[in-house]
């Protein structure tokens, strides 16, 4: 029985280190290869030894697909390909391919240079890893091999994020990665056609949330920022260098311009300017509005937002700082946070989801005393605000996508178990689609019943179609043919053609029955009576009286003969082939009953 098997190595009932194994029609695909921000030990990377104990990964995996550049989706890639060892193709979109290595390098620097970790992947490994990448266009059908094909769809979320369809024959799986169903200030909304996959693997970060309109949240955000700087406070917005940062920058930039504000806005790290440049060069991936107006004004050229210098953090007076990373788990944002946390005039706005174990998660869950490295305790007096700007689909959006793609079943990843449970029920009840939510290392097996494609000879097909067009063809009609199976080549042809192709002669089986009738009239007259009788009974058939005195019904031949012995008896010879058997045997029994008396 063909089946699809799915095993999350990461992101099963969890957010972080997305990594999902899919086996479909004998092909093995790994979806994403992420790291976990909440861990610093072995658990930060997926357990690749699950894939194969002693064999090479390259032999086992047909391809690896990376949905977007966030580290929880690609952070383990150099470790996987260079340290564990994988040489097969890695697919991602062009913007992902461009940005991914930069974020990986950044991640490596923090881990090795700042935390002093040994046995981490090197810069060279990132480079070597990226050499294995094959870039894909949106909607391009990439033929991984003769049978396996993949296709990318726009996912919103961040620049270059894509959903992927993985297809073998008539079986398919769609993996969404992270996606956003509402367009924001810089990106468009995810979209997929009605591709009816066997399985849709979707993220479910916001499985229980239904968010209010974006406008309200934006107003709220601007109000809070504005109020804080008005009273002389400093605003820290921890962000990831690419994605939300650009959206919020556009938002603040336009607000500053409208309100004519002079308070400085800074963007930390050199990465940012570079990041904005990517947005400028990958304009076709942004939303409609930006695409339309970029010639007049490129939205990613900011006037009010300047580069941040470490020394600025101690400057007096109000300011707004965007700093990386977004979950306050390391780096510059954490440094600034430590400096500003003690002052209640200041504010930190968390614009996105924070993984368990990060400082961001701790302060959002209300913790005000944080234990830092070296047993230090940091008291948080500054205001802590959370605004959901992260571009994940909410419950409504997830349902919407399921409705768009019309999958046979849904599998949830990248979310918290409790929330998943809720969404699972909702999907099963409202959409009547079976739904799974495996934990890491747990395998879901879905039996599939793919139909088998064969070639049908056009002659046979046309013959059937013409008959199918007749108005009486209400009831299902049977198509009859012969399937020729030669190696892996399957062809359905008419039986005549099959015989001919195989050089087999047709064997004709013919029956002739003698029907004895008492009748004294002459043969010709007799035939005429048979003809008119049959004509009146068989209205739908072609009944003909031939010049030689015989009568035909379709291809059945009826001849009248007079045996010499008895002039009062006539014999009708009814002759038909095996293919006309029903009609032939019907005719003999009909004639046996005798002919009706001629109307006088």
């Amino acid at each position, binding site marked *: 029985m063909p089946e699809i098997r799915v095993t999350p190595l990461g992101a099963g009932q969890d957010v972080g280190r997305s990594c999902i194994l899919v086996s479909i029609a004998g092909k093995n695909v790994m979806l994403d290869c992420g790291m976990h921000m909440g861990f610093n030990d072995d658990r930060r990377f997926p357990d690749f030894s699950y894939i194969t104990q002693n064999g090479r990964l390259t032999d086992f995996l047909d391809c690896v697909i990376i949905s977007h550049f966030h580290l929880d989706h690609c952070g383990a890639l150099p470790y996987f390909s260079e340290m564990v060892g994988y040489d097969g193709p890695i697919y991602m979109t062009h913007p992902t*391919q*461009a940005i991914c290595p930069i974020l990986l390098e950044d991640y490596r620097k923090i881990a090795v240079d700042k935390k002093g970790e040994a046995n981490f992947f090197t810069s060279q490994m990132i480079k070597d890893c990226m050499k294995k990448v094959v*870039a894909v*266009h949106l*909607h*391009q*059908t990439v033929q991984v091999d003769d049978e396996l094909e993949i296709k990318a769809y726009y996912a919103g979320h961040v620049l270059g994020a894509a959903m992927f369809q993985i297809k073998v024959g*008539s079986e398919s799986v769609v993996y969404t990665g992270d996606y956003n169903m509402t367009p924001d200030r810089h990106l468009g909304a995810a979209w997929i056609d009605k591709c009816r996959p066997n399985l849709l693997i979707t993220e479910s970060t916001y499985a229980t949330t239904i968010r209010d309109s974006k406008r309200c949240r934006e107003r709220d955000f601007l109000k809070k920022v504005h109020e804080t700087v008005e009273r002389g406070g400093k605003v820290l917005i921890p962000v990831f260098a690419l994605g939300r940062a650009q959206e919020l920058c556009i938002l603040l930039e336009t607000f500053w311009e409208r309100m004519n504000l002079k308070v400085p806005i800074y963007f930390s790290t050199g990465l940012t300017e570079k990041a904005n*440049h*990517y947005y*400028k*060069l*990958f304009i*076709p991936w942004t939303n409609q509005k930006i695409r339309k107006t*970029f*010639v007049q004004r490129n939205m990613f050229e900011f006037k009010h937002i300047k580069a941040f210098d470490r020394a600025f953090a101690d400057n007096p007076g109000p300011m707004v700082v965007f700093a990386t990373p977004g979950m306050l788990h390391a780096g510059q944002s954490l440094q600034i946070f430590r400096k500003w946390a003690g002052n209640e005039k200041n504010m930190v706005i968390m614009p996105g989801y924070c993984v368990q174990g990060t400082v961001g998660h701790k302060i959002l869950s209300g913790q005000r005393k944080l234990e830092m490295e070296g047993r230090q305790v940091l008291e948080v007096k500054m205001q802590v605000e959370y605004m959901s700007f992260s571009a994940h689909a909410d419950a409504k959006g997830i349902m919407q996508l399921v409705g768009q793609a019309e999958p046979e079943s849904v599998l949830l990843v990248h979310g918290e178990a409790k929330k998943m449970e809720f969404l699972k029920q909702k999907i099963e009840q409202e959409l009547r689609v079976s739904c799974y939510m495996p934990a890491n290392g747990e395998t879901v097996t879905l039996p599939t*019943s*793919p*139909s*088998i*494609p*064969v*070639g*049908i*000879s*056009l002659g046979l*097909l046309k013959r059937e*179609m013409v008959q199918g067009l007749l108005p009486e063809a209400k009831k*299902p*009609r*049977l*198509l*009859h043919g012969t*399937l020729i*199976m*030669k190696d892996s080549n399957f*062809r359905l042809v008419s*039986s005549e053609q*099959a*015989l001919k192709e195989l050089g*087999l*002669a*047709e*064997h*004709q*089986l*013919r*029956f002739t*029955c*003698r029907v*004895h009738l008492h009748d004294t009239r002459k043969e010709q007259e007799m035939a005429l009576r048979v003809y008119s009788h049959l004509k009146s009974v068989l209205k*739908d*058939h072609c009944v003909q009286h031939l010049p030689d005195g015989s009568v035909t019904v*379709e291809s059945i031949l009826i001849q009248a003969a007079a045996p010499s012995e008895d002039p009062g008896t006539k014999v009708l010879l009814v002759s038909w082939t095996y*293919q006309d*058997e*029903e*009609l032939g*045997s019907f005719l003999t029994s*009909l004639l046996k009953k005798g002919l009706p008396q001629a109307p006088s």
Partner: protein
Amino acid sequence: DLSTVDVILISNYHCMMALPYITEHTGFTGTVYATEPTVQIGRLLMEELVNFIERVPKAQSASLWKNKDIQRLLPSPLKDAVEVSTWRRCYTMQEVNSALSKIQLVGYSQKIELFGAVQVTPLSSGYALGSSNWIIQSHYEKVSYVSGSSLLTTHPQPMDQASLKNSDVLVLTGLTQIPTANPDGMVGEFCSNLALTVRNGGNVLVPCYPSGVIYDLLECLYQYIDSAGLSSVPLYFISPVANSSLEFSQIFAEWLCHNKQSKVYLPEPPFPHAELIQTNKLKHYPSIHGDFSNDFRQPCVVFTGHPSLRFGDVVHFMELWGKSSLNTVIFTEPDFSYLEALAPYQPLAMKCIYCPIDTRLNFIQVSKLLKEVQPLHVVCPEQYTQPPPAQSHRMDLMIDCQPPAMSYRRAEVLALPFKRRYEKIEIMPELADSLVPMEIKPGISLATVSAVLHTKDNKHLLQPPPRPAQPTSGKKRKRVSDDVPDCKVLKPLLSGSIPVEQFVQTLEKHGFSDIKVEDTAKGHIVLLQEAETLIQIEEDSTHIICDNDEMLRVRLRDLVLKFLQKF
């Protein structure tokens, strides 16, 4: 009749200039497919054209001359013009926008299903940003349409040749207009002539389209001007869409050649003209009016349109610079004969250099390509099957392939020489399970299929036949004709032959006695004397002749069938 056209596939932005005429003024209701760069740059070309035409509005337009009798009397080239009655006014921007809004954007290697029957796929053709060749295929047939392709390495993504393999038919068009000129040599000549003129204090005029080769020329100049000591000479690009064209060229990273792509990954703009603009070496203006007149410095290099020299800003420069022999006009666009373009400006003192840069396939590249992809048949315009009229001895300037290419002419219907034999059909797994294959020859198995055919949107599906309905016991007395069997229930064909001896043994086993076998010329006759039945057995036929005893007939039939294979 364009209302019968279902789909238009656009190969590159030069091939869509007439689109508004079709989408706006005929009954066309189908779909148009094109890549995003094609649409965006096509829009720019149309916008420029409309702008140029609308700058010089004509209060009146004459049409009486189109009368054949009058046209005949007019001087050449008017009297030789063909089909003047079909000539149209230029469309408006509104019509352009409406036409472009009807285009569906597609990406390279995207498989687009049309009506469930065929699949079309654009492939990179290497000629221009977003330029495509198309594959039109069903499950068993493949037609490739190759138009405007280039094997040279310029800025676009290289041509995808591998996907053209195994074509039944390859339609080949859009070859180079100037098969004798080598584009690389022409670029060199362009640069050296430009440098020579500017050094002597003259100006250079380059009539051109606002997109395409100009990107490559600017890139060459970027590398050339410093080494030639010309860094102070201003480059002007004048077109209503100059700015847009330069900006758009930078954002199509995914459609560019590998070198340019890797620049974007850094991230840097893929084309060096960004730097030329930044350092003020290249300036662009929407027209000669406004800012340009203030900034204008001579000697200089001006890129402007239209390359036909009949309209656009280029006309002003021809008149401004035509009288001085210091100046040079360099023709790079291959679409127009430079002599004809210059005719109205004669006598001219300025130098005229003809450096046509046409990167499309030449005949040598074509024969290499055809050898590579090996299509079964090649179809091309008639012109390509004979040497150009001006060089009738150049037998190398024509398509040479085996079997010879089939040619077509305008408005001619060409029947393609292949027959469709198969189509795809899906067999439901339940049905597939119920099939009983038997091996006829080694490696070849057969299975008889009786199934219900479902056809929807040109997709065919075979489902298992329904279970026979329970006979309904109607109270009404049936009429005779109700019993007439439905002859549409198909009986299988039979094959094989009947070994007489075994057949007789079988008959005996089943209780028949008194069997007599007679040999005939072609086979045997088996006589069942008791039952007055006679069975003629030949190599490929069996004939059962019996009295009207249905029971007996059916018994005999079943015994015969045991020896035969059903299909």
